[in-house]
């Protein structure tokens, strides 16, 4: 029996070794140290892209990136940060899982003298030091979404629905930007006003977005447009309009520009997306870290503006060509 325990352990140890030799490929060039990256959720392709671009950018600077999945759990992320500190990493990069609650963990890294870079969400806790932040300019993205909506509805205007997600601050900003553009469009206009008849929770999720849209179509049969704060809820909205045989009549504007969203734009399901640039985020974080190490001055907080992605862009998008 004892032998059995031993052999099982040996087996697991052998497997561990198997894993550690895997990353040996990068180690030939890297020896400057390690960077710990705690991702919001590796189930979301957005953060996988950040992880990949960060890893590539770090490798060319001689650093190895350890990516950990926080799985949207603050406690898990705090543990990961603590482990990064124990491992003596050169820097910690994270997508805060909560704007407030991750504060004490960042403080711990501050006390250990390890620079912390945040990406995507910005931490708002008091008394912490962030060496650099990179995120999307969500307000500007919302403005672009508003412009896209005006563009597609033309001068006729009409009733529109907003699928929001108030739990996430980024999504609140998107709706604010959107509303501002719509309001200035309506100003001094007699005919062709664009009216937001309903603003409900789309959950940032396909099934919740679907249900919310089904209900709204009952309440507002004359809907002409829908703005959904991300691609999954936009796709849910499309499924509902399609089911009600109104897909041709209702224009949908999404947000993000993840692969599924881009594909939907190519197929004409979604009119347009303000797209984010996760690839750029990983690179910019690394640039900031290098500038930090070199003692240069750099922009500590940087928001990358989104750009509008329509069907024409999808036609010439190399990412989509590869897929077909």
């Amino acid at each position: 029996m004892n032998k059995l325990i031993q052999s099982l352990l040996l087996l697991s140890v052998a497997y561990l070794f198997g894993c550690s030799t895997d990353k040996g490929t990068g180690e030939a060039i890297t020896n400057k140290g390690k960077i710990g990256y705690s991702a919001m959720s590796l189930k979301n392709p957005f953060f996988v892209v950040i992880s990949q671009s960060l890893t590539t950018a770090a490798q060319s600077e001689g650093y190895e990136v350890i990516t950990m999945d926080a799985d949207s759990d603050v406690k898990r992320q705090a543990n990961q940060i603590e482990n990064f500190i124990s491992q003596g990493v050169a820097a910690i990069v994270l997508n805060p899982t909560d704007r407030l609650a991750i504060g004490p963990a960042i403080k711990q890294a501050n006390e250990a003298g390890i620079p912390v870079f945040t990406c995507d969400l910005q931490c708002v806790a008091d008394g912490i030091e962030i060496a650099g932040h990179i995120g999307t300019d969500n307000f500007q993205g919302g403005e672009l979404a508003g412009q896209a909506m005006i563009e597609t509805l033309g001068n006729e205007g009409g009733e529109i629905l907003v699928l929001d997600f108030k739990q996430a601050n980024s999504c609140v900003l998107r709706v604010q930007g959107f509303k501002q553009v719509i309001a200035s469009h309506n100003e001094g206009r007699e005919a062709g006003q664009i009216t937001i008849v309903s603003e409900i929770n789309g959950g940032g999720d396909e099934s919740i977005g679907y249900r919310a849209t089904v209900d709204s179509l009952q309440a507002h049969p004359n809907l002409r447009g829908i703005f959904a704060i991300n691609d999954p809820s936009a796709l849910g909205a499309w499924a509902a309009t399609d089911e009600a045989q109104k897909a041709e009549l209702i224009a949908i504007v999404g947000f993000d520009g993840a692969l599924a969203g881009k594909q939907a734009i190519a197929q004409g399901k979604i009119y347009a997306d303000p797209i984010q640039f996760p690839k750029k985020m990983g690179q910019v974080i690394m640039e900031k870290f290098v500038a930090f190490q070199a003692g240069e001055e750099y922009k500590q907080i940087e928001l990358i503006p989104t750009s509008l992605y329509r069907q024409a862009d999808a036609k010439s998008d190399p990412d989509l060509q590869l897929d077909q």
Partner: protein
Amino acid sequence: MIDETDGLTEKTPAETGLTAEAPAETGLTAEVPAETGLTAEVPAETGLTAEAPIKKWSLKKQIVDHGMLLVLLLLCAAISALTVTDIHPEDPAAGRQLAKLALQEYGTQPNVLIVVRDTEADRAFAQAINDELIAGGGNVVGIASGTPRSAILQLTQTLAAGENVDVIATHHFASQWEVLSASRRAQVSDKPIKVISPPSYRWPSFLTKNNLLSILNQNAPIAIMAIGMTLVIITAGIDLSVGSLMALAAVVTAVSLRDYLGGVDANGGSVALAFGIGMLVCAVVGAVAGLLITVFKIPPFVATLGLMMVARGACYILAGGADAVKIDVPAISTLYDASVLGVSSQIILMVILFITAHVVMTHTPFGRYVYAVGGNVSAARLSGVPVMAVLITVYIVCGLCAGVAGVLDASHFLTGRPKAGEFYELQVIAAVVVGGTSLMGGEGKILGTLIGALILGVIQNGLNMAGVDSYRQMVIYGALILVAVVVDQLKKKVINPGVVSD
């Protein structure tokens, strides 16, 4: 003492066939065998002391009894072997050693610039270098404490002021800064400047005091919740609501402080009261679970599944969304931040709770009742065990343990997080099962649960330390849980051949 509970549980399956499978079938209580079952059970209460001295010490028995402890130690050894790496000391002792090195290698009067980060530990390190250098006749031209930028600024300023810098004394971390690279040094000074840092040594990064303490600290909430869960599982029940209850305690603490106990102006007493309210709410939910299970005869799985969702929903409602509720009271962090000799309050609390639970389960009638209810509920009832009270108490205790974890969480993150403890129920149950408690009930040890929780914690930490990526971690983590349980089953086969066959 640990053997005593075994003595009880090993007997139960041996009594009759009905004991192992039929705790819910009340029809059996009327039968005569139950009466004999009762007589077999009662001596277990009194016969505990009578049986112990007869047992002989045997190696096989030791291995079987402490198998999980052995697994834990072997795991630690394996992970230590895997995480051997260069350790770069940064403590004052290393600072003194570095200063001596500088004096030896660069003459008696080297001009030294000390470069460190702006942290407490680093300042102590810099101070040690400084004192030792001055004592040995060296010349400290300055201490740059801060970022790479402040280091390079101070270096250029020092040089511009006409002072010589022969050596930069720093630690490994800062020696990797681009500003201290050879090319940058050549840019700012014509004369060569050396960068020195304390020599490194090889040692497992797993096996450092900080890391071991951090494993205990990180897993304390799960381990504390696992105490209550162990009792529940020994009664052949399950409690899926613990993760939600943990969040509920944290959110209730945060909201009651914000809205009812004075907000920003709340004092330590109010904070303690808020903690109490948070835990009380959890105890109440635990009592509701116990009532649903005993009075309404709802299976524990279903009853606690419902409460899990009710409690989670309540968290979101109270918090007004998924964002954490901020606690502005400074006193809130006292509980989590307190420590004795570098050991955090969380660990101390965990140890105290485990010792208490161990004593209760092995030395009190209540403990024996819990085993009796789990072993054979009918026999327990007939022998006068207050089954209903025992079950309700057990779920209250489980809720309370989740409440303790919840207030610790609030104190740690300075917020009430409605999303706290998601899926923790599974980790907690895993800790209990890996610790050797049978999901069939009637069997299990509190200290086994502690070891179970530590095994899971060590695996997770070891995988992180060895740099295994998240996806693989899930596979290994799951597989090791299975291995642990299989080993446990085999162990029973060894000590009790023939019994496990069902």
